[in-house]
């Protein structure tokens, strides 16, 4: 019996108006593995993640979560999202709630945990990521790196099957990037299944089990990180990596 992948994306198509953003993308993410999506801005990485989280409906193709067809219109999107954590480029913490309330909102309101229980679990998570002293603060008092780590903890608080990370370091200065990447590496070490869109190639090489290079809405090349990042077969991949290298990001 073959093991069902946590996420399976099959031939997904998505257009915004006349612009085709995804042109038949397929992807399988087995449990406890990390798939990293690389590619220029506008190549479809973010759209793919938003499709998986049903924030954006697909035009065609099938997405399965643990074998469950979540692109079926009968499926309740809230049920799907409860099993998927998503972290955004712009953090998107709730500014009117303290760090702890940000983290316990979904456990309390969606998963119906009582406040004391949710807060104890939240504090434990914060402590694990070195943020225990920030629990009572409001997001605008935190550095960008701390805000993003809180956003990651917030997604973890509902014990997701799958984590989606959409360029989580793109809004941070280089020093803060590292603390966020260290957090993601910790998650990888704990066996979290993740799909990560990033421009940090060094980081991709460290955490990825598989790297997919997207261009114009298709996966042009995929494989082990050392192969895709260091010995790319496709001219398009080589060209992209050369430009990234010139920009000093590799």
């Amino acid at each position, binding site marked *: 019996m073959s093991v069902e992948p946590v996420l399976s994306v099959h031939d997904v198509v998505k257009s915004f108006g006349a612009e085709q953003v995804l042109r038949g993308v397929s992807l399988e993410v087995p449990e406890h593995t990390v798939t990293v999506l690389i590619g220029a801005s506008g190549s479809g990485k973010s759209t793919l993640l938003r499709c998986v989280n049903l924030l954006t409906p697909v035009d065609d193709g099938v997405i399965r979560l643990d074998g469950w067809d979540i692109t079926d219109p009968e499926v309740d999107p809230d049920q799907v999202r409860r099993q998927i954590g998503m972290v955004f480029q712009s953090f998107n913490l709730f500014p009117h709630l303290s760090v702890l309330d940000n983290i316990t*909102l979904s456990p309390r309101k969606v998963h119906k945990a009582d406040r004391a229980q949710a807060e104890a679990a939240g504090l434990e998570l914060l402590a694990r990521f070195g943020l225990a002293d920030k629990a009572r603060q409001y997001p605008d008092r935190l550095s960008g790196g701390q805000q993003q780590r809180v956003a990651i903890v917030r997604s973890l608080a509902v014990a997701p099957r799958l984590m989606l990370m959409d360029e989580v370091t793109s809004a941070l200065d280089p020093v803060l990037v590292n603390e966020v990447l260290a957090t993601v590496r910790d998650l990888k070490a704990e066996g979290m299944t993740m799909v990560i869109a990033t421009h940090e190639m060094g980081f991709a090489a460290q955490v990825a089990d598989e790297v997919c290079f997207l261009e114009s809405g298709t996966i042009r090349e995929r494989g082990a990180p050392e192969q895709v990042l260091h010995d790319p077969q496709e001219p398009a991949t080589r060209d992209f990596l050369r430009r990234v290298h010139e920009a000093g990001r590799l």
Partner: protein
Amino acid sequence: MSRPAPGPGTPRPPSAEELRRRGVRRRQARKRAAIAATSSVLVLGALVAVVVTSPGWPVVQQTFFDLAYGREVLPKVFDGLLLNIRLTIVASVSIAILGMALALARTSTAPALAPMRILATGYVDLFRGVPTLLVILLIGFGVPALGLAGVTSSVVILGTTAVVLTYSAYVAEVLRSGILSVHPSQGAAARSLGLSAGQTLRYVILPQGVRRVVPPLLNDFVSLLKDTGLISVLGVVDAIRAAQIESSKTFNYTPYVVAAALFLLLTIPLTRVTDRFMLRSIQRQNAQVGG
């Protein structure tokens, strides 16, 4: 030039140059305060002098600022003002509820709520477009004329209803602008945490959106307090009507001035509170942009 490097936490003593600059700043501040005080006294004094020395002033003083008469009518006007306050409290609660319902209906996207959206939009167009005084007259005199069984003919209730109907339209628009000002990424973050559309609205969108429009809402509250006086056209004895009754007995307008002073006593503190809220919310938003 061998100042010992102070450790973290021990504030460095200011340099001689900084002490000199502070002295200059203090002198500048004193000079500015003196200029402001002098010009205020001159301008206000000139205004008072123009009014007091005008040829008609003795008559005006007698008919508008008769202190003894003012003291005599104060209790009656004050009783009227209590009605204005009570109506304001009842009306503001009703307006908050109806205004929020309208705002939610107008910002809803669910297809099942399409008729609500259309009705709410029509409602807002109608009641924002018709002068408040006309709504009060139409409802205050029109509804009793219908002779419907079970419907009150109390002008206080009908007049307040008219004010509530009008103000709900304004408040709904203010609330709607607050709801729409919350960035869509906040909604996306909430939905991706598994919150339903309703939960997202209640726990994420509304708390942020409503907080942003507190200053304009307080503004509307101040003007509601004054506009409850409009229902005096229906014969309700509020502060304005009480003043009118008193002044018609003697053809002295002091009671109106008393009513105006009483309204000011209420609205000026409220306005100050509004200003402070507005300043604080601007500062907070700037802090968020900066952070």
